[in-house]
């Protein structure tokens, strides 16, 4: 009986479930990457290992230009969203917001739950109604909106975990609010800010439906271009450019995780 009591953590079939789940999540990605290194023109027939499609992709001026646009937009949106999110998270976790907290949280969660196609079309309609024509600025504004909640996630978790004792101790020693922030909260929050920024960056880099609708002349982003490529057909170039995007996202998210030393979206 005692054995049964101590073994409640054992879950029959749990290991195979987890293995199956991870296989389900990763096998398709792995296959995409493998196909990207296939030298054959026909995607589904293996013709030996080759990096020529990567070469082709890197030599394509449209891909280079759209990648540049994507990066500029992602950097700008990340800076804005992260800054706003730092401010918001301090207010939410350390501030006094009688009666407002619920509304604020709801508003921040809005971009997470409203379907993307609805956001894309209403944003296009709104931009056209107010005549917003900022070139890449249109994209930056739209991206900032949906990057805020993602930038906020790790910071909020960090502020909750670290508690307020250090900050309170500093206050007891007559530190001003600004000094408390600069000397205690900000350094402790630092890794979470970096991690939030990277998540915002990746989120911006991933977006395609909203970008397709709100982009202006000269501001086609890489995912929009790749979608166009996919529509033309399943080609080795599409696999290669997808593999590159996949690699960049993975590297950034891993860096974000290493910085905070913990998982990103998980509490």
């Amino acid at each position, binding site marked *: 009986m005692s054995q049964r*009591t101590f073994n*409640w*953590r054992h*879950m029959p079939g749990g290991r195979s*479930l*987890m293995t199956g*789940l*991870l296989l*389900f*999540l990763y096998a398709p990605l792995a*296959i*995409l990457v493998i196909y990207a290194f296939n030298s054959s023109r026909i*995607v*589904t027939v293996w013709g030996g290992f080759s990096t020529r499609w990567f070469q082709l992709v890197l030599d394509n001026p449209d891909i280079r230009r759209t990648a540049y646009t994507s990066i500029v937009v992602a950097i700008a949106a990340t800076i804005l969203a992260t800054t*706003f*999110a730092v*401010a*918001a998270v301090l*207010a*939410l976790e350390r*501030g*006094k*917001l009688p009666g*407002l907290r*619920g509304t604020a949280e709801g*508003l*921040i*969660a*809005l971009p*997470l*739950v409203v*379907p*993307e*196609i*609805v*956001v894309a*079309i*209403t*944003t296009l*309609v709104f931009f056209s109604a107010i005549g917003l024509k900022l070139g890449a600025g249109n994209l930056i*504004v739209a991206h*900032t*909106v949906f990057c*805020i909640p993602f930038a906020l996630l790790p910071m909020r978790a960090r502020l909750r975990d670290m508690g307020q004792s250090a900050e309170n101790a500093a206050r007891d020693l007559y530190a001003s*609010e600004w000094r408390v922030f600069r000397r205690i909260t900000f350094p402790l929050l630092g890794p979470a800010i970096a991690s939030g920024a990277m998540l915002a960056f990746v989120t911006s*880099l*991933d977006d*395609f*439906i909203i970008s397709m609708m709100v982009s202006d002349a000269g501001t086609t982003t890489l*995912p929009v271009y790749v979608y166009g490529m996919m529509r033309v057909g399943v080609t080795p170039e599409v*696999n290669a450019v*997808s593999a590159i995007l996949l690699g960049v996202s*993975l590297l950034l*998210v891993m860096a974000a995780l290493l910085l905070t030393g*913990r*998982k*990103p*979206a*998980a*509490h």
Partner: protein
Amino acid sequence: MNRLRSLLLLAPSMLTIGIFMAVPMLVALAYSFMTSSPYGGVQMPFSVGAYVQMLYDEDFDGVQVFTPDYLMIILRSVVLAGLTTLACLAVAFPAAWFIVCRPPRQRQLLLFLVSLPFWINTLIRTYCWVLLLRDEGLINHLFEGAGAIDEPLPLLYNDGAILLGLIYTFLPFMVLPIYSTLERVDHRLIEAAYDLYASRRLVFRRILWPLARPGVAAGALLVFAPALGSFLAPDLLGGGRKLLIGSLIQLEFTSGRNWPFGSAIAVLVSAAVLIAMLVQARRGRSAAELAA
């Protein structure tokens, strides 16, 4: 921190999201009560025609008749999003519990592995399944190579393919909130239950499930809402044989040239999602909070 300072800190985020997200949704609401211009766009006068059209549309003779088509599309989208949610739940709950039961280091690694795909471009993740499922795709090749089939199986361009794509896309959204509630379950409760000879099923039914309900609810919202309006999976994996809400909205704004109707459907979807969010917020923790 005083109230004013808190408000000032909150202001940039609130204004950005408020102006560029909440206001556009209000504009769409206004558009849904207007009349369509011949080549897209809207014009006066105000009208509830767009909402009437969902149920009563003109037939080819110009007579208003009851039209179940749009209801069917909405219903199918709801069913598909619901099935996605259920399937995610069925996998995510045991998976989350399994992770909770692991030693802390393994827990972090597993959570990391489960959440990682979420950060990869949805477009690319959906495209992976095209590579796998098409007639000339890997799965059919493997089956043919094994001599199990002569003709390729029609795996792509059906509701099943859409469902698979949706589950693949949104599964992490379900695992994480459930995990974060299960992690907080007091071990002593479970041990006590076992000591009192409770079966595994009883422990699940009487302890884990009730305690994990907020997480399940949050996960359900985070999966159901985006799945309802999804656009990529139906487009790339469904082959356009059946319309879903997301594609219908897009159609009405483009070749249908009926912006008020497109807006009306968008309003309907958003309203449903917002109501679900409000209900949850009243019940306790918000979805966003649990996802975090």
